[in-house]
């Protein structure tokens, strides 16, 4: 087991992860990368059919052609979310071929991937580097996974691939529509999901790229979100995913009165802070509270005739209606959450698909996230230093991936609208169970009991002076909630074995998740 050191945030982190050296978090904007980006192997057109037909008869054959060996890294993507069939088919095929000790490198995992536990038990998969939720999260936190999980943000995943920190041997890209050359798109086809941005890095950097589709069209597949020039093989199967679980027919705003109150307070805060003005930009997540925030924001914009320059998605029917109503010039979309979003992306030139490269990658020449006037995100816990946790529950169990959360903290105003307690569990704690976002980047916490502004943001404190909004110190809200819940919660009992490493956007290790005591 690796030695642990205390990083700049005061967290114990390993200096070696799965045999490779790791750099402890050095502080926000402190770590300076050097060297050149990684690159895939050189190839020649003479090795590929001149007629452009790269189709092979099965996934198994494709894996064989790709030279599948023990210990390889295989990547898949979460565009098909909980409807994905491809990742499961890949590892079933790998298991049949007798492969062992593979590293699964998904952009995110979903409950439909719980079957990977059996592959870990049988030795086909060694460990997972990606989000770990539900039973997979428990499997990891209980210390049953060989190797250490590595959780990265969407931008951090791009960074890790381009920096050469993760070399992908075989990338398998599920494509709702593709041509035999490997051009692929997500905006149409029976399993349409919108866009394929999470697979873009894999297509460019992996040693071998396999496109799997259930909707083969003759060349050219237009648009080509994935360029066939990066693709080695194309496999056609009956169905890549269950459309009902890929995107919901419609996104639902929350009905919970408390969450509506939080969303409304958040929108009013943005208004009073002067964020909502012509040409502004914002991003809100996919949760019910964030969706409702969008509705309240839309009402304010309509009333004042304010137009945004761009809105970052996760797109949904509400963002689409804002675009169509002329309340924003553009949706810069990272993933599509409902069928309206998919339709709009297909039809509306103002609805643009983006990738973690353009939006989130820290080791690039700027990114979109830091240009946003405001982002609205969730969190499982925050602490009095405004630090945020999105990956573990207060009981120490992994329950969420990082997603774009860490990347979005770069915005000009990061707001976390969260309930002050869930059931009996306070959300504001002394010290977050797992540090995912440093408090200096989290500006405002909005709960149903009041709004806390990070004292570091003197400008916001000043702008809201005399406001009728319930602006309160975070410690006061915390004390009130602990009073209600019967004192602060006990700390989970943990061993000193690291089961997962949490990466910061620059590839350094910001915190560790420790194995639960039995």
């Amino acid at each position, binding site marked *: 087991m690796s030695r642990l050191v205390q990083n700049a945030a005061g967290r114990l982190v390993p200096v070696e992860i799965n045999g490779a050296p790791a750099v402890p978090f050095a502080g926000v904007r402190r770590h300076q990368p050097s060297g050149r980006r990684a690159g895939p192997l050189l190839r020649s057109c003479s090795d590929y059919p001149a007629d452009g037909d790269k189709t092979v008869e099965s996934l198994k054959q494709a894996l064989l052609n790709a030279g599948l060996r023990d210990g390889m890294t295989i990547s898949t993507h979460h565009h098909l979310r909980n409807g994905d069939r491809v990742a499961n088919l890949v590892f079933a095929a790998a298991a049949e071929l007798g492969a062992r000790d593979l590293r699964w490198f998904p952009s995110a995992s979903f409950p439909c991937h719980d079957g990977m536990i059996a592959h870990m038990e049988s030795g086909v998969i060694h460990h997972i580097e990606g989000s770990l939720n539900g039973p997979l999260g428990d499997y990891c936190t209980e210390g049953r996974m060989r190797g250490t999980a590595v959780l990265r943000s969407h931008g951090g995943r791009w960074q890790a691939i381009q920096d050469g920190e993760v070399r992908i041997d075989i990338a398998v890209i599920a494509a709702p529509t593709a041509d035999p050359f490997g051009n692929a798109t997500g905006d149409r086809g029976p399993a349409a999901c919108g866009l394929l941005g999470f697979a873009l890095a894999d297509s460019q950097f992996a040693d071998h790229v396999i496109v799997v589709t259930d909707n083969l069209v003759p060349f050219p597949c237009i648009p080509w979100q994935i360029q066939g020039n990066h693709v080695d093989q194309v496999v056609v199967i009956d169905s890549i995913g269950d459309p009902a679980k890929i995107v919901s027919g419609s996104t639902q705003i929350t009905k919970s009165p408390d969450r*509506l109150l939080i969303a409304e307070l958040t929108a009013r805060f943005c208004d009073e802070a002067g964020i909502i003005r012509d040409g502004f930009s914002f991003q809100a997540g996919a949760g019910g509270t964030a969706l409702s925030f969008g509705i309240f924001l839309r009402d304010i914009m309509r009333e004042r005739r304010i137009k945004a320059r761009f809105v970052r998605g996760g797109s949904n029917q509400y963002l689409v209606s804002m675009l169509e109503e002329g309340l924003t010039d553009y949706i810069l979309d990272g993933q599509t959450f409902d069928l309206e979003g998919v339709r709009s992306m297909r039809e509306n030139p103002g609805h643009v698909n983006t990738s973690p490269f353009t939006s989130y990658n820290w080791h690039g020449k700027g990114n979109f996230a830091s240009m946003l006037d405001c982002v609205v995100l969730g969190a499982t816990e925050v602490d009095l230093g405004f630090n945020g946790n999105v990956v573990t529950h207060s009981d120490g169990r992994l329950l969420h991936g990082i997603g774009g959360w860490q990347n979005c903290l770069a915005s000009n105003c990061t707001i976390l609208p969260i309930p002050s307690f869930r059931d009996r569990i306070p959300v504001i704690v002394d010290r977050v169970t797992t540090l995912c976002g440093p408090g200096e980047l989290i500006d405002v916490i909005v709960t149903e009991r009041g709004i806390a502004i990070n004292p570091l943001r003197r400008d916001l404190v000043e702008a809201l002076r005399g406001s009728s909004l319930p602006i309160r110190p975070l410690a006061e809200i915390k004390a009130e909630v602990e009073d*209600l819940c019967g004192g602060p919660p006990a700390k*989970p009992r943990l061993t000193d074995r690291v089961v997962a490493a949490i990466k910061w956007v620059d590839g350094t290790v910001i915190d560790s998740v420790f194995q639960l005591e039995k």
Partner: protein
Amino acid sequence: MARFGEAGKRDAGTRSDCWVGVELRDSGGIRLELKSKVGALYGEAIRAQLTEGCRALGVADAKVEVVDAGALPYVLAARLEAAVRRAGHEPEAPWLPAAWAGFDRPAERGRLRRSRLYLPGNEPKFFPNAGLHGPDGLILDLEDSVAPAEKDAARVLVRNALRTLDFHGAERMVRINQGERGLADLEWVVGHGVQLVLVPKVEDPAQIAAVAARIDQLRAGGPEVLLMPIIESALGAWRAFEIAGASPAVVALAIGLEDYTADIGAQRTQAGTESFWARAQVLNGARAAGVQPIDTVFSDVGDMAGLRASVLEAKALGFTGKGCIHPRQVAVVHDAFAPAPDEVAKSVRIVCAFEDAQARGLGVVSLGTKMIDAPVVKRALATVELAVRTGRLDAEWRETLPAAAPAPAKKETGGGE
């Protein structure tokens, strides 16, 4: 004698509640079996509370089984007590949870009662945050929203909630049951922080007198408890004035239309012509007795435009309050009851003219070329006061609104406005 009792909920959808089963035994001490969703974080605290509870309730030997879905401590205490009582054990002394610092704040007779939000008395998950939505009153309901078999459990829960929860400025209201059961309900709420009791289906001033007498007996010199009778029948409507005047504790008279329309043999309609007489009768009875007239609930929680129209209509009739069954209705109700900006501006001009006339010793108030009658001044004063109380007008408006000063009074004669 029953040896086993259970209370609370444990079906799959349960949240912020728990189930407690108590089997009384003759020996062996207290055996706890706890399954909790928050066990890793609060397991020890829950065990300690249950142990203390058994001691306080005088239970020495029992098997206590708890299935917890994140119940707050006051809920856990209420479920344990209800289960113990159902097992046939009557505690010698009540087990009262530590009270919230403001739980016995005295009632205010003249406060605004624009919105009163009903909360089902046996559904604890709604209790702690309901006040954050800003209703003028929060009603913990022991009557229609509680199944007959759960009345006893709801009483314990409501008592504990009254003692431990901050209602965030909302008046602490309880709707009791009808008749004898309602009088018995009072034992669980009077002295525990209730500020106003709603008495349902009142048809006879004697019912109010009986409730008032029982409250006086129970509070034994403690804080005053106000009353809001609800008129829900033809007979009640007929006697509205007498009921409103049946006790000095009555501060408001409300109408409940669902039962009323059934009682007169009519269908409740959107237009509401079938209940117009009763509403006017309750309104006039309340005004005649000097108490606040309060309208019925608006029950379509999805129709905010309809709610707003309904409040504006009630306000036009003279009502000053409306019942709510969803927190999101509160802001709409308050907004609709607040005086409109032009109404405020006009009232401010009239009040200024009135004060100006008084200062100059003039008997006649005039605004521009118009004479202003005394009732118009009275209504303007009330509008300005309501505007200040509802935040539509700064309390220091005389300092901050120089533009509102009236034009110099002209000496003119003629009729009133």
